[in-house]
């Protein structure tokens, strides 16, 4: 019974570089859409939840406070996908812990792509593979910073589908930062807007 009451993510009085205070609960399996003009603090908010920036306030994942979990373990559970993916080694396969064959198929890749040099990937391919790489950690919470900004409509749909499937399989929660209202309406059930460092509810299930 008690377990049901613990939200996946609880943000309480979060402050970070002029953003805040933000307080917010996100339930298991829920997808929350976040929009707002650039520079309003959306990315900063995601970075604070992933513990990439020093911040004030408390953040709990499944009832456990951020400070109690070693940072690398926290970031494996709270997967932040930046709007531009990062690659540090020459071949694609070097960036994956194990073979991610099933996910590859779902995103329209064949296993051979693991031997490709990263430089051969298009920005859309990079973004999809970056998502796959992130899902390898089996995060309980996904923080997506404009995940389909560089993708065409068809690929965007595949990415949306992959995230929806992952959410349903694992009960992971998602914070989806995006600009397209139509897309947010498709993927999210609750909406927030960030305006000069303040977070305002903008509709959806209360």
């Amino acid at each position, binding site marked *: 019974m008690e377990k049901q009451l613990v939200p996946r993510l609880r943000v309480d009085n979060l402050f970070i570089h002029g953003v805040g205070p933000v307080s917010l609960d996100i339930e298991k399996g829920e997808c929350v859409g976040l929009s707002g003009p650039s520079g309003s603090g959306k990315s900063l908010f995601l970075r604070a939840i*992933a*513990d*990439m*920036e*020093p911040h004030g306030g408390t953040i709990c994942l499944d009832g456990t406070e951020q400070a109690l979990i070693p*940072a*690398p*373990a926290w*970031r*494996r559970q709270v*997967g*932040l996908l*930046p709007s*531009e*993916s*990062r*690659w*540090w080694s020459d071949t694609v396969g070097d960036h994956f812990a194990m073979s991610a064959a099933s996910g590859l198929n779902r995103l329209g890749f064949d296993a051979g792509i693991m031997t490709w040099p990263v430089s051969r990937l298009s920005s859309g391919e990079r973004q999809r593979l970056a998502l796959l*790489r*992130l899902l390898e*950690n089996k995060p309980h919470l996904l923080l997506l910073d404009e995940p389909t900004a560089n993708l065409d409509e068809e690929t965007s749909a595949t990415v949306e589908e992959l995230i929806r499937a992952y959410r349903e399989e694992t009960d992971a929660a998602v914070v989806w930062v995006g600009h397209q209202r139509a897309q947010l309406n498709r993927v999210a059930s609750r909406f927030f807007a960030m305006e000069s460092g303040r977070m305002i509810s903008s509709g959806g299930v209360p």
Partner: protein
Amino acid sequence: MTSETIFLTPTDLSLAALLVIALALVSRRMGLGLAGQIIVAAFRTALQLCLVGLVLKVVFASINPLLIGCMALVMLVAAAREVVARQKRRFVGWWGFGMGAGSMFVSSFAITTFALAAIIGVDPWYTPQYAIPLLGMMLGNTMTGISLGLDRLTESAWERRSTIEGRLMLGHTWSEAIGEIRRTSVRSAMIPTINSMAAAGLVSLPGMMTGQILAGNPPLEAVKYQILIMFIISAGTGFGALIAVWTGARRLFDERHRLRLDRLKTAGQ
């Protein structure tokens, strides 16, 4: 066996100075913007070396451990300041200075002491005629290595910050995220000394050896000392750079494995 040492007169040095003045004039004509710097640097060389000559005269005259210790400390502080001055992006606060001073203290002082006490075996081990020049050479060379290593570290971390953060976001530890940069930084610190070991004698006669030969010592004796110097310089530079780069890399992250580039500031700010 050897000819008598020829002492240089002020006139001899003035002739050499003419060459530097000529260089300054040429660079002024070519608009290199270096003329002033050349003259100032030449003046500093003359003045600083003369002062050191006077100080050494006093220090050598009495084997006073306190005096020698003070001299060594002044040399260390000067070298650490130089390390900071050569960084484009410096650690904020005392860290930049402390990292340079700390790593040079551990590597140069420890290895020089070892060389004096265990290898050369002078009695007492701090005999200034041996201790001061040896320490000077160690500090001069480790200083170069450490500043190269730290400069490479901070510059690469700055340029590749988003890649480092990309790895942190995937749950890599700070050490994994900076590992490759840390290795290349130590490599770039060590390579000059390794190269100079490889080229010694073929391309150039190292300064100390040249000095000993000019002073009339048998070449083979000079060579043995030079080999010793090359060995301890390489060890000192290598270990010093390792310590400095490892401490520096640690300082770039906080206890929550966040990349903290706010701990760096650009030179001149």
